[in-house]
């Protein structure tokens, strides 16, 4: 059994506040990241006892896993997923290496405008009608969830975006078949 020494968990309050709001702690949050990195066993045991599932992803981020989200969070998550998938396709269409581009190239308002224009009918379903809507509804929320950070050149995607890429790869024909039947 892991011994939890609370005096060592100096950032517990901050970490709990961040994680419980759905935030992903990645390497850019240096202090919290180091705390978690050094005491991951204790934190994991503690959060487990509290009924949370603290996950450490080897690609460099920590988050609380959850089986379901509230309808509102679900909607946000879908919007983020759609944006990222469209972004991957967009980069691939331009002949770029999508995985590299998604982490290297900042998403500025111009890019968002283009994405929304090119995929109008998809974004319409999520009530996103313009580049600034996309910025407000998706990217600012991504910042709140620790999926992106804002720089003067635009938004930079962070490592937790991998959760969506995993989700993308999870979509397979079986999911699709199920859908077909439902329709």
């Amino acid at each position, binding site marked *: 059994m892991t011994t939890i020494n609370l005096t060592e968990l100096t950032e517990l309050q901050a970490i709990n506040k961040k994680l*419980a709001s759905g935030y992903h702690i990645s390497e850019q949050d240096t202090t919290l990241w180091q705390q978690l990195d050094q005491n991951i066993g204790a934190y994991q045991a503690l959060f487990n006892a509290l009924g949370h599932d603290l996950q450490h992803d080897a690609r460099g981020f920590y988050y609380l896993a959850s089986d379901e989200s509230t309808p509102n969070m679900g909607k946000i998550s879908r919007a983020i997923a759609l944006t990222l998938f469209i972004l991957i396709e967009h980069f691939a269409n331009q002949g770029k290496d999508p995985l590299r581009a998604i982490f290297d190239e900042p998403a500025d308002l111009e890019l968002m405008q283009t994405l929304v224009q090119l995929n109008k009918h998809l974004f319409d379903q999520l009530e996103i009608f313009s580049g600034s809507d996309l910025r407000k509804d998706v990217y600012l929320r991504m910042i709140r969830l620790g999926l992106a950070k804002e720089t003067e050149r635009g938004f930079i995607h962070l490592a937790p975006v991998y959760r969506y890429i995993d989700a993308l790869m999870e979509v397979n024909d079986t999911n699709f078949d199920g859908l077909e039947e439902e329709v």
Partner: protein
Amino acid sequence: MIPAKKVLNTLNEHWSVLELLFKRFKMTDFSVKDVQNIIKHKNPQWTSERIFRETNRLLNQEIIIPLAKSSQLEINRAVADFASFLLQEEHLGLAQEITVLVKDLERLGNRLEQAADEGDQSELRRFSRIMDERVRKIIKLFLHNENAIFNIVEQAKSDSSSISLQKRYRAVIEAFDEYIEPMLEMVDIRGEFHACFNVIENQLSQQIDDIELYGRGAQDKRMLEQLRTRILDMHLVGRESLRKSADMLMPLREELRRNSLITRQASKVLAMIRKNGVDPMLSPVQPEFVSDIQRFSLGQQRHMVAYMAGLAEFEHDEYQLPDQSDVPAYQSPHIPDYADVKKSFSNTGKTKIALLGFLTGHYPDLDADELLFLYQKLISDEALELAQDEQRVTVNIAEHDFSLYPFNASTKIEHTNDNN
């Protein structure tokens, strides 16, 4: 015949020009004007007369030569090879090139053996020399190809985002499929090369043994030994070089595969989203975040403190689960045992009695559903002879009104009861 020293001097003097020519035109042709432009570019202070003279000098010394039946020029092949060696601008050779040389080596080995059998020393020496030459050539090719692959990898990695990924990695895939894979197959421990080298090695060892035995041509022994060592070394160099090349190419190949997988998947999923709508398509796969319930259940300081206190006092106690076998049968607290009910019903002794009347009379404390339960149990009991009334009757059971065609006991109750 142009003196070599003179050519070298010219090469030295015009190296920058030649380098540019080589890089710009690679293996294609160019015009006199191109050459003059490059000379002018490299030496801006030269007069046009001098540029003309230097161009002629390159032409006269056959460093650049005219293409057949055309006014276009090309770099002399020998100079181009030399330059490519110096610049390490090597192009990947063919796997077949090496295969052919190895096959030839096998043929020469047979000739060598023949010569040794016939005791023809000069032939033996000649073939041994040719084989030596071939082996050097093969090693050179291995190293050359390794360099070429290194170049390919560097080029693929260098970020020129203008080229598409497919194009960027095309050379990598080609190099892998057309050079590395066939070569690895041949160099494999059970591959063609190995067998071939085994044969040659055995032949050479045999000849060395013969020389030791008969003492004939002792001066050739050293040469043969050297050849044998060189061949073994070549095999080793080849394996090493291929392994290195494969190591360089592999990650890029993987990267390409993963990227094209992601791209393909993205367009597939987007196509499905376009067809089926965003919400139904993405809902099952989207990553979930911590929900509001979780968020509000914890997070305030006092909650944390309470939880921590609970944790501190928590004692791990084994909870004893009941055994499956000794669970007592379920007994409704109100319903009397059916056997008792049946007995008392039979014992009323009346011939024609309303079942419901009996139940309500005897068990006034029971609820309506419990009475009905006993009622349906009694009427479905085959030991009792019951008959259903023809008339619809409304009865009041435990403050509820029911209308039904009630069952009544027939006359034979006593007899059936006796049998019990």
